């Protein structure tokens, strides 16, 4: 009898264990459709309050293709970045030919880097090592799948009901804090997309500096694969 009870309990337990991968997939889909276009503004704020703003148009397809085009300011207009899997390129209009860049660089300066601007799904780049359940949120411990990923570890706090991140700590392999992202101001962008409109970032490496991404529009849209190629980089404006 005792053995039968133990067997029933052990079979039932997996049904109640948290599926971290499933939670992370839901977070990804709640943040963005798999293929979409979006307009974002990046604001770098210096300790004295001075700001520099960049306006970007971005498109994404599937798990590993992202492209971004700078619309403002005038000094950066026409600049574009492209990501295909682990490959990243930057195209500056005057130079004209795309050059390879790394995810840890920043084409805009400040706290945000290329990995933040050309972000893929979290499930594409991270495995869930552990998930904890708190009263109203999950805490997911993520480990990068490869050495090419910008941040080796993430610690993600996600709202339990909305399955949206509220905070992410980006860490090194030794769990040293690189930066923290705060997801704020949940808005309905229509098309079934309800997600944070503001992401604030600060970093112990840049004390007193803050960077902010604001989403203005996000829309589900399909693109041909040829959009995400070097040859097409100078034509991204035609997608708007």
């Amino acid at each position: 009898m005792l053995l039968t009870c133990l067997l029933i309990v052990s079979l039932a337990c997996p049904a109640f264990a948290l599926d971290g991968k499933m939670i992370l997939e839901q977070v990804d889909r709640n943040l963005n459709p798999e293929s979409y276009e979006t307009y974002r503004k990046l604001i770098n704020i210096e300790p004295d309050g001075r700001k520099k703003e960049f306006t970007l148009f971005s498109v994404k397809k599937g798990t590993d293709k992202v492209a971004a085009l700078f619309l403002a300011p005038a000094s950066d207009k026409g600049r574009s970045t492209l990501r295909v899997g682990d490959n990243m390129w930057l195209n500056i209009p005057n130079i004209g030919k795309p050059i390879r860049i790394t995810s840890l660089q920043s084409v805009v300066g400040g706290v945000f880097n290329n990995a933040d601007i050309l972000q893929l799904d979290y499930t594409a780049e991270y495995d869930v090592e552990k998930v904890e359940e708190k009263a109203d949120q999950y805490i997911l411990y993520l480990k990068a799948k490869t050495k090419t990923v910008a941040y080796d570890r993430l610690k993600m706090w996600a709202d339990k009901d909305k399955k949206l991140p509220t905070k992410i700590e980006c860490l090194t392999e030794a769990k040293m804090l690189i930066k923290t992202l705060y997801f704020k101001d949940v808005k309905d962008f229509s098309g079934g997309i309800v997600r944070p409109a503001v992401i604030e970032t600060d970093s112990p490496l840049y004390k007193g500096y803050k960077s902010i991404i604001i989403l203005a529009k996000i829309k589900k849209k399909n693109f041909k694969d040829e959009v995400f190629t070097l040859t097409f980089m100078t034509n991204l404006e035609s997608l708007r």
Partner: protein
Amino acid sequence: MFWLIPKLAGAEESYTFDPAETEKKPYYVGGYLEFKPVLLGLDHDSAFYKLRFFNDPRGQNLLEANGRIQLEGSYENNIFRIYAKTNTDLKSSYSGESERSTFYELYGSVKPLTNLKFDVGKKTMKWGKGYAWNPVAFVDRPKDPDDPEQALEGYIVATADYIKSMDGPLKTFSFTSVLFPVYDHVNEAFGNNYKLNAAGRFYFLLYDTDIDLLFMTGGSRTDRYGVDFSRNISTNFEVHGELAYVRNFQKSALDVSGNRNMVEGDAVSYVIGMRHLTTFDLTTIIEYYHNGMGFSGDDMKNYYSYIARGYNTYQTTGNATILNNALQMSEGSYGRANAMANYLYVRFSQKEPFDIVYFTPALTWMMNTDDQSWSLTPELLYTGITNWEFRIRTGIIVGARNSDFGEKQNDYRIELRVGYYF
């Protein structure tokens, strides 16, 4: 330094983004203004100083004031687009004031499909993977290795781009075909006249490596073929290279007696380079360039001797024939940047040292490895004010007599560049 003052704590600021900022207009107009005063420290003993100032000797320094105005605009309607970029260079120097205006680019585009585009007009192609040099840039004007990021004037061409994406190790294939006419008033300085040239570039993204195969043929210049590649060895370490094979290249060089001899043969030029980024944002670019069409040390010594002979003749008789001949040769191959055969380029740039945001100091060193003459250019760049760019550079040139950098007109150069985008 005011940017070190910590922000006062206060109420959380709300951020807005007006969707009107994302509305696309069918037209765009913008531009760039530049002011660039330059102080040149002259080397009175150098061959190129004697060549340029034999009848107008100068003091120790020369001051130049340069200005640049670039305007660009585009209009788009459905699958059609027209784009134009003008460039006006203004100069005030010892020789007076000058102004030169031209269209850098002016072309129309038709894009019937996502993966197919046609352009006709004046445009730049910008082929190649090298930073300072591009031997495979068959359809472009040569860039200035001292300032490789400057905009260039294009050529009048007709192009077609076809792109194909795939799954598997070959992720992307594209082909760019180019028709390049050379006639009266159409690309006429490019080479032999009354020719319709063809060029092309096949691009592959294969096993995460960018690879191009390039060619040009048609008669305005001799046939040439090229290959280039670029790949990340690790996330912060990139390698790249170019190789160009030029058939039946003709080079006119002076012999010891000052006679011009034509040498013909096939030439191979190549660039091999790398780019590395450290965890503290120091970027290092190193490139080695072999110019198969360049002059040897003896070729250049003969040229410098010719100038010296011409200068002595002028000093004693007033006859400037030899110097005028030498001046004409300098406007061709002898006077171009990196006219000799082998160069090494090293550039360090450090992003935001000491947490000074938008500040990038850099150091560039270029050496002629045949005669060990070199130039060193430290620079400071600041882009912290939106749409403004401030750069100050100094250039120091070191080399023995009869060496590449040693015989240049200047010993040093100090340059300020203030740019404004609108």
